[in-house]
């Protein structure tokens, strides 16, 4: 297992470096003048804009800007936001926990709602419950999270007053956004678990288990479920990665700070240091998540251990 992990970590480093270089190129080559956007709706004379550009080093040739910033990043200095002058590392340290908490809670909701739904739908295949649960799943991943979020706010915050409309302080503010994100994940997971279960339930070893006289629950849960999980695990981890960035829509709707929001606002304002630093951190998170997935895989599917 040791060498396996080391090789994968090596891959990870290459991926992260590649991402860093690509993003640096893209954000610099993207059109737009950050200084004009930074002034917001307060237009000024060109002379003042030039002073600001000079103070941010934006009047230097592009290649000089890129290499200077790259050298700093390699030394561990992520620089400061062009907009707020806050250290990028501070911004990232603030938002990563917020997004991780939201994405994790959403993933938990997604698994708790989606997996049992898929299992029950499979065992009830063709019956009324199957169609209802499948409809619930399809609804989940068809509705855009933007709309789901606004709907949840309208019903559970404004009408019923059970949860706050927005914010990031306290556990209660987490529920609705996690539900909005989680329902989306649950839908996809439910469908995948259902089809995985259906396939597995037809395998010969399941027939044998039944023939041995085992209770149906045991057959389903101990023998079929674990094997049906494999494709679902892949999906779940891919989803977690996309939850990190997809959370930006839910974060915006619910007025929460987060990694996705940091990146998007950075892109819209061409705040290079913020975008580069945040994307770098995101790439690291993805890589680590993928590595953990692969290890989980090995645990679930013994056939892979001997490959």
């Amino acid at each position, binding site marked *: 297992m040791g060498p396996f992990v080391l090789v994968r970590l090596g891959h990870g480093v290459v991926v992260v470096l590649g991402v860093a270089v690509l993003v640096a190129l893209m954000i610099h080559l993207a059109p737009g003048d950050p200084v004009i956007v930074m002034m917001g709706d*307060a237009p000024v004379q060109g002379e003042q804009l030039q002073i600001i550009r000079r103070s941010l080093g934006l009047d230097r040739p592009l290649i000089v800007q890129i290499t200077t910033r790259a050298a700093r990043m390699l030394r561990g200095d992520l620089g400061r936001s062009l907009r707020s002058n806050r250290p990028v590392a501070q911004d990232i340290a603030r938002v990563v926990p917020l997004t991780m908490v939201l994405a994790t809670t959403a993933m938990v909701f997604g698994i708790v709602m989606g997996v049992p739904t898929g299992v029950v739908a499979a065992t009830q295949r063709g019956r009324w419950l199957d169609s209802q649960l499948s409809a619930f799943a399809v609804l989940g991943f068809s509705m855009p999270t933007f709309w789901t979020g606004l709907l949840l706010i309208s019903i559970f915050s404004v009408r019923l007053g059970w949860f706050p409309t927005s914010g990031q302080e306290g556990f209660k503010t987490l529920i609705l956004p996690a539900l909005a994100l989680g329902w989306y994940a649950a839908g996809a997971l439910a469908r995948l678990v259902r089809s995985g279960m259906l396939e597995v339930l037809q395998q010969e070893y399941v027939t044998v288990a039944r023939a041995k006289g085992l209770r149906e629950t045991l057959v389903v849960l101990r023998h079929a479920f674990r094997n049906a999980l494999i494709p679902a695990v892949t999906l779940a981890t891919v989803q977690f990665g996309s939850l990190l960035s997809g959370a930006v829509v839910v974060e915006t709707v619910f007025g929460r700070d987060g990694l996705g929001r940091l990146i998007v606002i950075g892109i819209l304002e061409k705040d290079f240091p913020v975008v580069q630093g945040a994307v770098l951190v995101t790439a690291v998170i993805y890589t680590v998540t993928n590595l953990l997935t692969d290890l989980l895989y090995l645990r679930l599917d013994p056939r892979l251990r001997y490959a």
Partner: protein
Amino acid sequence: MQQRVLLLLAVSLPVMLVAAPAARPAPAPQPASAPRSGGTLVYVIEGDPDRLDPNLSGLRTSQIAFFQIFEPLVVRDPADNSFKPWLAASWEVSADGRAYTFRLRRDVKFHDGSPFNADAVKFNMDRTHDPALATRCGGCAVGFYEGTDVVDPFTVRIRLRAPWAPFLDAMSLFYRMVSPDQVRKVGHQDFGRQPIGTGPMRFVEWVPNSRIVLERYADYNWAPPIFRNKGKAYVDRVVFRIITEPSTRVAALEAGEAQVATAVSSQDFGRLSKDSRYQVVVGLSPGVPFTFAINTTKAPTNELAVRRALNWGIDREIIARASYQPFQPFGAFRPAYTLLSHTTWGYDKGTETYEYDIDRARTLLEEAGWRMGPDGIRQKGGQRLEMVLNSWEHGPPEIMQSHLRRIGVSLKIGIMNALAVNEAQRKADSHMSPLPAARTDPDVLSAFLHSRNVGSGFNFSFVKDPDLDRIFDQAATEVDAARRKQLYAQAVRRTLDRAYMLPVHNRDNVSLASARVQGLRFDVTGFFPWIHEVWLSQ
């Protein structure tokens, strides 16, 4: 079949719940009586500040918060646009307009206890104009500031390189006093995160992208004469909550989590303005209305006849009514026919040049050689009369497109974020892009129209008109107020006559407040609230 029924239920149930009236009945608010002290005011804004530092920041979302923490020397009275005392008790301007002497109040202290005096004013002016700090304060006299002399502990003289006419206006809004002690303590760059001023509210905390919390400054005792509240603030705390999604801002108001929601969408405004639990709070904004810069160097808008036809060919009344109907009864988002809104100092109704005249537009194009083509779009020399307009929001662009089609112009529309819109205009990929500017002084027009601002600045019309430049240069340094007004009227008339720009509608502050909020009013920009005057009824 059953699946369909369930799906139908799943969709209609939330719709019914949403459309139903709110489950909890709200208590009827007490009629306004004497101001009471106490409570927390939650004020929802749409963006995060960059830094809470008036010397270095000019972003509106920053100002809305830090205007409560920091105070200016003078203030413009919204009643008549004249200047009144604030931290300065009196002032005089030298005859040549280059020296401003302010006599300061003697009873003012910063939140950290340090005294406010002439040294503090000098510190602030020098800091704002330190090139190493590259201020983003858009209204400050960058380029005109020479220096500040401390005449005596409470008298200060500010010297300008040339008589910059908007200076007193800038002193009333953008030049606000920060504590020199605090800057020395935490440094120039970090002051914006630990701000200390003299204002009625003091800083408590700022969680980026989430909230800014201020609390009442107990020792505040120097409210300017134009304020009704002569003592300290009524509310205990004000929390500026940052919510970028417009519907969520309103949801927070409806759920009772906030008492004021700003930048309300027209649908929500229309729905709640008739609800007795809420009150409409509108601030009419001075400055340049929502106006499109027209690229005067790119065909076909390089032709004067075409630009004039555009100005004759759109029905601004319809545009304002169709896009912003709920705001109209409150005087907000009205159609604009000239380059300054009617609440601006220097506004002159006589400068209005165009109205909706479809025949005139057609005649102008015909005479310029643009003949109607088979597809309803005019042509000349094998070229179709088509142009690109980019904007940030839907509404007016689509209506303009349909109006212009009637006169044979094909308008391609792009809706995208500000960065992309500006870049496309700068690279001459588009013909028109929006350029509104809320500002109390008409000098802001020169940022859009002076030739020195082509390329690296905001002159998106690419106008290089020496006569216009001369008028702006004169007006910027004209000491006589009446003459200055005339000069700007001249500049606006010339700009409209040459159709360098296309004014469409005003852009105002449209907010909603809970009926509990009393005394909320805005300064002369129509945008920045005077939280000091606000109190919450039960």
